[in-house]
């Protein structure tokens, strides 16, 4: 039993799928949270300070996310190694019939996402990359997330980097979401198209939600308000 | 030598039961000491191998394909008969028996056919339990449909892939035994010879088709379930690999070959389109329900597009010749009529070997949608192969060789005249007489494998007195050496022609003179020509490659070599059987309306041929005695 459990590639698939679903859930909340920036600086700053109200919950949550990312990545990497081994001699003309680019490049997009997220954490969470604009406080004494975001995205290169990073995440999701349905055995005859459309729709939603912030900043819709 | 069919005494319905009651048994603990060699893993072979292994015998199963699941039983489309009488339309074991016997034109053994009908129901039970997804009614019960030669609906089917599903059932049963270590499977392994010692079958010599290694396997009994020999005609509905070598080699070692001239021609196949063609594809006969068969009246119109030929210039020859049946004339009659008009030069399509099957009237009468509903999948197959749209232009069809009723002679126990050699399925001659009814082949293969052989092989083994041969026995070595020598001879062949060209030429000759219609002059001509061509084949064939590796040409050369010898026997049998019956139609013997005319006074017997090295084969006759049925004429009017 134990051997079967740890050796089985299917168990790894379940782990990838379950952690993927959880990370997707986090991403959805993250997106909704981000969108509060359009409600003004007070709203987003209040939201940010709320998240940090309890260090126990905050760090518990962060630890959970870390474990999930590690499990997701580790299992995916192990599977990828097994899968590489399953075809030692490559085709000269690689068969691509019937599969999407997203589905064939999950490991690649996943790796890019890892780098993107690492930078993102150093940028907005650790606030190490742009310390000059990251430590303001608003009139209530809260960390001024609003100004940090707006000032960051006023730099076109950084905005572009974020948009590409988010695009990568959503590209990953466009296959990942429907793939999770298959891995978890939740696909039934007649619902296949519905599931792939759902995956596409949620990916597009997250992309729009996430990238709307840098775009809005660049187009001057979100501006620094004199505090 | 007198052929003893070992048919049990007593009334028909009790023969098999009484026989079973008297059969010798082997103690379960002793069974594993015995080994049965099963060659071929189609319906008969796989079911026999699985059942014998389940009982506890050691089993070695051999097939030339890369997996046991690929045997050509897999291609059977229509269905499998059984006397379940689920539709309550008056079916019974007796009716199934009688229809099969009558369909075979009273040239099969009464007791064997009765047993086949008796066992038919258990086959359905067994298959369903294995998970064969037969068609079902909404209520959850099994569905039946009607099939040719019967007035009841007794055919069980799984869409158009009944053979596939039944074979997968048997293959999975065999796989289970292989997984349990009870059976050993040798794929990509071809039988080259039978080992016979003191007149008994003791083993086989096989060639590993990957390494080329030739070895002997010895067993306490040998089962040949290697299918039919339709590929003697080169083009047939058989798989390319189907061959007669196993049964032919057994025949050369003393097993009698029964009724080789009984071959079945299917009227609705897609015609030959070019010289390189390798296969004829069967189209369901149901097409003739709505299609009208015709050819141009004038030879010069044959090259024209069918749409440009006016109604008056068309010859609806089936409707003309058989006004009451029209396009639904029986298989053999329709086939021969098509050949006749093509012989007159009025055939259509490449090579002039084809007739139109026209749906224009049906489309006008029923509408495009209805025709599509009835025959859409067949029109698709036709389009796939010919790239022609049968909704717009008529289909072209032509008869093709489909099944061979003849095979090695076996007694009631399915044992040949060589003790220890059992023959099952299409490879034996036993149950279909001179013509096989639709949906009977699957029934016979599985009855043989699941229910007859497991008992009769046990009976034979229980009476064994001598131990299994060691593979270093002189006779094994001799057979291996002969096979090695034979392979070497072929591999060194450096003539000017390919194996395929000879096979094609042999096939054409056989088809021409010993196909749908046979007559003395043609058969005599054929009998003179085959040996000459065979001689050229042996001298002028070109092979390349090695003996110790995959070499399809080498395999084919040896198979065609055997086909040449078998063709001569078919020809001799067709000449000898101076009557028409079932699939054997001698032009000299027909009723005024073109039906086969039997000669029961002279030919109510099985013709079993004995091989004589260097001489003419010797005919042994097993009289066919009908205790409880009357030999009526085959009349479906």
């Amino acid at each position, binding site marked *: *039993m134990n051997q079967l459990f740890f050796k*089985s*590639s*299917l*168990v790894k698939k379940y782990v990838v799928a379950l952690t993927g679903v959880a990370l997707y859930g986090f991403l959805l909340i993250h997106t909704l949270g981000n969108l509060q920036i359009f409600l003004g600086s007070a709203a987003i700053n209040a939201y940010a300070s709320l998240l940090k109200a309890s260090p126990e919950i905050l760090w518990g949550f962060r630890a959970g996310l870390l474990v999930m990312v590690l499990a997701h990545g580790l299992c995916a990497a192990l*599977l990828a190694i*097994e899968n590489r081994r*399953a075809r*030692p001699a490559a085709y000269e*003309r690689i*068969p691509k*019939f*019937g*599969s999407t680019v997203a*589905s*064939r490049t999950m490991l690649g997009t996943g790796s890019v996402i890892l780098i993107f997220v690492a930078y993102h954490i150093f940028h907005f969470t650790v606030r190490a990359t742009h310390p000059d604009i990251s430590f303001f406080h608003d009139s209530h004494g809260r960390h001024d997330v609003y100004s940090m975001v707006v000032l960051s995205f006023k730099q076109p290169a950084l905005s572009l980097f974020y948009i590409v990073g988010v695009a990568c995440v959503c590209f990953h999701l466009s*296959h990942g979401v429907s793939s999770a349905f*298959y*891995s*978890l055995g*939740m*696909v*039934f*005859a007649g619902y*296949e198209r519905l599931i792939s459309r759902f995956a596409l729709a949620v990916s597009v939603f997250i992309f729009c939600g996430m990238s709307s912030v840098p775009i809005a900043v660049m187009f001057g819709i979100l501006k620094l308000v004199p505090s | 030598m007198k052929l003893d069919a070992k048919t049990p005494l007593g009334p028909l319905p009790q023969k098999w039961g009484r026989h079973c009651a008297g059969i010798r048994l082997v103690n379960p603990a002793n069974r594993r000491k015995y080994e049965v060699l099963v060659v071929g893993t189609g319906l008969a072979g796989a079911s026999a191998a699985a*059942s014998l292994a389940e009982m506890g015998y050691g089993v070695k199963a051999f097939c030339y*394909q890369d997996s046991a699941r*690929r045997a*050509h039983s897999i*291609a059977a489309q229509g269905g499998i008969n059984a006397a379940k009488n689920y539709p309550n339309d008056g079916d019974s074991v007796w009716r199934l028996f009688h229809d099969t016997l009558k369909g075979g034109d009273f040239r099969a053994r009464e007791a064997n056919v009765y047993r086949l009908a008796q066992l038919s129901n258990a086959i*359905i*039970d*067994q298959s*369903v339990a294995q*998970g064969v*997804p*037969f*068609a*079902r009614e*909404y209520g*959850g019960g099994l569905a039946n449909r009607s099939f040719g030669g019967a007035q009841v609906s007794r055919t069980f089917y*799984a869409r158009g*892939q009944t053979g596939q599903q039944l074979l997968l059932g048997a293959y*999975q049963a065999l*796989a*289970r035994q292989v997984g349990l270590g009870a059976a050993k499977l040798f*794929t990509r392994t071809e039988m080259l010879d039978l080992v016979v010692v003191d007149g008994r079958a003791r083993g086989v010599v096989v060639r590993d088709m*990957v390494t080329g290694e030739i070895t002997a396997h010895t067993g306490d009994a040998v089962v040949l379930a290697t299918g039919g020999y339709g590929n003697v005609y080169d083009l047939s509905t058989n*798989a*390319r690999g189907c061959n007669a070598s196993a049964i032919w080699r057994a025949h050369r070692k003393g097993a009698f070959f029964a009724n080789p001239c009984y071959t079945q021609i299917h009227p609705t196949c897609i015609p030959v*389109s*070019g010289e*390189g063609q*390798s*296969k004829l594809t069967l189209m369901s006969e149901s097409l003739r329900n709505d299609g009208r068969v015709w050819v141009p009246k004038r030879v010069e119109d044959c090259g024209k597009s069918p749409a440009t030929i006016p109604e008056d210039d068309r010859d609806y020859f089936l409707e003309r010749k058989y006004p009451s049946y029209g396009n639904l004339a029986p298989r053999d009659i329709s086939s021969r009529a098509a050949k006749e008009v093509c012989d007159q030069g009025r055939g259509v399509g490449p090579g002039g070997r084809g007739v139109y099957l026209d749906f224009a009237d049906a489309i006008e009468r029923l509408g495009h949608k209805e025709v599509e509903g009835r025959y859409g999948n067949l029109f698709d197959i036709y389009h796939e*192969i010919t790239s022609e749209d049968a909704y717009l232009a008529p289909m072209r069809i032509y008869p093709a060789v489909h099944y061979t009723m003849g095979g090695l002679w076996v007694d009631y126990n399915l044992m040949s005249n060589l003790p220890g050699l059992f023959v099952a399925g299409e490879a034996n001659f036993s149950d279909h007489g001179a013509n096989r009814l639709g949906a009977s082949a699957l029934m016979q293969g599985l009855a043989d494998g699941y229910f007859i052989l497991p008992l009769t092989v046990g009976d034979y083994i229980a009476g064994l007195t001598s131990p299994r041969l060691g593979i270093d026995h002189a006779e094994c070595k001799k057979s291996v050496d002969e096979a090695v020598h034979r392979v070497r001879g072929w591999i060194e062949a450096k003539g000017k022609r*390919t194996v*395929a060209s000879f096979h094609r030429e042999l096939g054409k000759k056989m088809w021409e003179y010993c196909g749908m219609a046979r007559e003395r002059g043609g058969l005599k001509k054929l009998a003179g020509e085959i040996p000459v061509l065979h001689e050229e084949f042996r001298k002028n064939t070109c092979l390349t*490659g090695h003996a110790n590796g995959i070499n399809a*040409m080498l395999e084919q050369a040896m198979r065609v070599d055997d086909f040449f010898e078998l063709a001569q026997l078919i020809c001799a049998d067709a000449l000898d059987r101076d009557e028409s019956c079932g699939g054997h139609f001698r032009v000299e013997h027909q009723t005024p309306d073109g039906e086969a005319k039997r000669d029961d006074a002279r030919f109510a017997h099985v013709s079993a041929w004995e091989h004589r090295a260097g001489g003419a084969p010797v005919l042994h006759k097993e009289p066919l005695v009908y205790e409880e049925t009357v030999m009526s004429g085959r009349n479906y009017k």
Partner: protein
Amino acid sequence: MNIKLRVWRQEKPNAKGRFVVYDFPDADPNMSFLEMMDALNNRLVLQGEEPVAFDHDCREGICGACSAVIGGKPHGPGKRITTCQAYVRAFREGDVITVEPFRARAFPVLKDLVVDRSALDRIVQAGGFVSVSTGSAPEANAIPVAKEVSDKAFDAAACIGCGACVATCKNASATLFVAAKISHLGWLPQGQAERSRRALNMVEQMGKEGFGSCSNTLACEAVCPKGISATNIARMNRDFAFALVSRAGQ
């Protein structure tokens, strides 16, 4: 038609292979692809060269023997066909068609285009059956099976075991093959008793044979000559998960 075939030639299992180009200046468009290969082989033999080894048998798309990746797709151009159902007319004038063997660790090349697919047989031997010995079956109509259920079982049972799913999968996974068998027997009441064992054993054997795992790219479904649905994969994943849980509970 003027076409060229670039065919993989490999002498032995571990030998180094290479592509060899063969010209067909006047290929008959109505020939099947395999008939063109027959013609090629006849030509090669007369020239004193070794013919190209390839698997084939029934030539009507049901035995599953034929293989090869033709022009980047297993079984060649066209939907729901096997190699033996591919016709020369599906190519274009002047095409150079690359013909490769199915490539997977579990399918070692034996010679040229011939690969060893016995791993699929061993997966079936591990559990792809109903353990019902001959003679022990109940009356066929004793257990009703709804038509819809029987139809679904058939859809999965239509697999011909050709291995195209493995050939096309970027992970060389046999998941669709395994899932089809688990589904076929899993739908039917006859297959229930062994449903968990079957899922566990067959999946385990697939791993042992060196096949990769499923990334749900669904390329297998797209190339399957019999149109086996990838929903069977979801079913297998479900059965396997239940089997794991129920085994843990025992």
